[in-house]
């Protein structure tokens, strides 16, 4: 069997992006949470907020460090595997990526050091300000990346001259039709990720009876937040879907598993899509559901995949099921947020073992949902890399062979597996160490200086070997 460089390149890009994306999506949400904690500390003077802030800052440092290291690859991927795309779209993509680097640098250079290492060197107010700026910085980084991605989904503000894209309006190009929806959806996803990790970890501590007071507070405030955010995300996701229906109807058709353009389309809960048959072999659905959601009318006409050639259709299986995974996890998140509200009566929310265990498990849910959501949006635009403008076959690096891509794909998997295992292992150690003692005489010497992000977490990676001097750590 010949190795297909296009398929393998798509797999490679999906792998690298998904792997990298789970770190920023977490740090974006967590940065905001830390800013809230430090803000509470400044306004109330209660040390418990500062202790929680310190704990989550250490977690943030490790995850941020992992994100930085795994992100180096991204700036080179377009050139190595998609060089025709890079050449065609560089007039827009190039400045966007550069501005992302520039803003990310600002964040690192200016405020990350103060957030990570400045706790006892600047006043709480200044420290809070640094936390706020780091949170803002993460959003600005996300802004450029999502502007780029959204433009590739709904290109605007450009013209093509001699096969090359020229930007005619930066405003139209950056604030393209799907950008506001995608950015809001992603921002909420980041908050949900941060929120569910915080509740999951707090639940873990409560189940073990460690620092109960502090983690009760963290759990309670975050559950209030999730009660508001999880349903809001469902609403925004729905709006995003309507926007997609307008601009990328075939993506919606694949998400709904809808082969024929017709009215009274059911909302499928389960189906076995069959490309050869151009229909679903089995369908279980709610009558008129899709018409109702997408057109707000049971008789509404929903576009089907019959509108385009079979060769142009997105892979229905992947899009259909990834979408359901994302929605199911979203509903589960709402369910947990509501359950939290119900259990508040009599303080059961801190004692109910099934609920706390459930929250522990739920801390992984947003990551899966985010990756599934990206799979929906990225495979659903197939075969277009720039929707309606450039397809995968024309975007690929012409000199690429399947073997080369396979070699580097396996290589990246190996490299990332090693750092991911080491990183998660270390993260667990940092979390297990828990909150620092409640005293503000934390030792600082002249060598405890702002440096690499992860040096903010003073937790040993492994246990000391007996024959090594303990002071060399």
């Amino acid at each position: 069997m010949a190795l297909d460089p296009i398929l393998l390149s798509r797999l490679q890009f999906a792998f690298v992006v998904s792997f990298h994306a789970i770190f920023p999506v977490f740090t974006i949400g967590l940065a905001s949470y830390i800013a809230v904690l430090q803000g509470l500390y400044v306004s109330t003077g209660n040390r418990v907020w500062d202790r929680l802030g310190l704990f989550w800052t250490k977690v943030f440092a490790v995850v941020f460090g992992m994100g930085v290291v795994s992100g180096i690859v991204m700036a080179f991927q377009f050139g190595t595997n998609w060089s025709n795309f890079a050449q065609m779209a560089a007039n827009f993509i190039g400045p966007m990526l550069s501005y992302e680097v520039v803003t990310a640098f600002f964040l690192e250079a200016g405020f990350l050091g103060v957030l990570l290492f400045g706790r006892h060197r600047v006043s709480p107010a200044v420290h809070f300000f640094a936390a706020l700026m780091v949170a803002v910085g993460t959003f600005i980084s996300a802004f450029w990346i999502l502007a780029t991605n959204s433009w590739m989904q709904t290109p605007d503000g450009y013209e093509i001259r001699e096969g090359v894209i020229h930007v005619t309006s930066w405003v139209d190009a950056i604030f393209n039709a799907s950008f506001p929806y995608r950015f809001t959806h992603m921002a909420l996803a980041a908050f949900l990720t941060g929120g569910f990790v915080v509740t999951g970890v707090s639940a873990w501590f409560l189940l073990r009876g460690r620092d109960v007071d502090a983690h009760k507070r963290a759990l309670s405030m975050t559950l209030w937040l999730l009660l508001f955010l999880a349903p809001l995300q469902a609403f925004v996701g729905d709006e995003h879907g309507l926007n997609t229906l307008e601009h990328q109807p075939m993506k919606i058709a694949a998400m709904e598993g809808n082969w024929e353009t017709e009215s009274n389309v059911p909302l499928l809960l389960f189906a076995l899509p069959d490309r050869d048959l151009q229909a679903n072999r089995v369908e279980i659905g709610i009558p008129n559901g899709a018409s109702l959601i997408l057109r707000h009318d049971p008789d509404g006409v929903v576009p089907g995949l019959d509108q385009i050639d079979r060769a142009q259709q997105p892979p229905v299986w992947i899009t259909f099921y990834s979408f359901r995974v994302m929605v199911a996890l979203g509903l589960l998140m709402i369910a947990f947020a509501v359950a939290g509200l119900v259990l508040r009566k009599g303080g059961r929310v801190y004692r109910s073992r099934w609920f706390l265990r459930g929250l522990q498990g739920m801390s992984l849910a947003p990551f899966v949902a985010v990756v599934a959501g990206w799979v929906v949006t990225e495979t659903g635009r197939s075969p277009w890399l720039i929707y309606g403008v450039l397809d995968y076959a024309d975007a690929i690096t012409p000199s690429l062979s399947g073997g080369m891509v396979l070699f580097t794909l396996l290589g990246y998997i190996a490299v990332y597996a090693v750092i991911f295992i080491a990183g998660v292992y270390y993260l667990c150690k940092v979390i297990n160490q828990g909150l620092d003692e409640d005293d503000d005489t934390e030792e600082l010497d002249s060598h405890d200086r702002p440096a690499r992000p992860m040096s903010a977490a003073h937790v040993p990676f492994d246990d000391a070997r007996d024959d090594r001097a303990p002071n060399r750590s």
Partner: protein
Amino acid sequence: MEMFDLSLIWAVIIAFGVIMYVLMDGFDLGLGILFPFAPDEDARDVMMNSVAPVWDGNETWLVLGGAGLIGAFPLVYSILLPAMYIGVFLMLAGLIFRGVAFEFRFKSRRTRNWWNAAFAGGSFVAAFAQGAVVGAYIEGFETADRVFTGGALDWLTPFSVITGLGLVAGYALLGATWLVLKSEGHVRDWARGLIPKLLVGVVVVFAVVSLWTPWIDPGVWERWFDHMQVIWLLPALALACVIGIYAANRKGRELMAFLLTLGMFIFTYLGLLVSRWPYVIPPDYTLWDAASAPESQFFLLIGVLFVVPIILTYTAWSYWVFRGKVRVGDGYH
């Protein structure tokens, strides 16, 4: 916009970014290359601590260079990266490994040898791959109709292996002179002893590459031997730096030895640029062929002109804060 040649401005910015990266990441990659030969674990602690506060700032230049390249010269980006496909992968894998090793070595004891190996191996591979890019670049790329048409391993030639090893030796020299500057006692003595050996390696590669290059490309031959003999000044200055490094090292003038090593890199780099100017993808495309649209170059220029001075200031400040010698036992918890 007509008043300025934006592409020329961008060529200067990118060239500046590349040499900044080479000089700054060069010495911390060099320390990684020297890592396995360190006399003891104390020396390794000192080596890492001497660059720990600054190394990831150094790599900012690489990411900025990659992003700036696609913004300003997409043709270079979209020919160079496919041509170096496997090399780019090796470089990135190397940088990732050493980046993670940097973080975890400080925190580990039982697994420290693993992180030592990852740091050394990653540094070596990344340095070699970067050196091979230089060699492949001198040799030129097979292109047609603005795309790379060569094979996956075209870049791996006897010539690029030599330039790869040359850069490994050069970075090791940078690392050694840096370490002399930043350490004391037995660590410094060890690093000082390395410098003459590394100089021999660098000079051998320098000579081989200089003799070989004009044979590869008639354009370079013509430029060197016919109408631009002032070019000889640059390799002469680089050689003068080499002699200066040897002398300064003998006399224990630590800062001078380090600065002269920087000088050696700068003059060699300028020599390379002048030999090829204005071709950015030899032998076919000049920097003007490779440029992106003026609107894009201009839009990007605003951001970069704003941020580069801040990066430079910040970098200078952090080197100032962390100035002075690193002692055994100093460092991170």
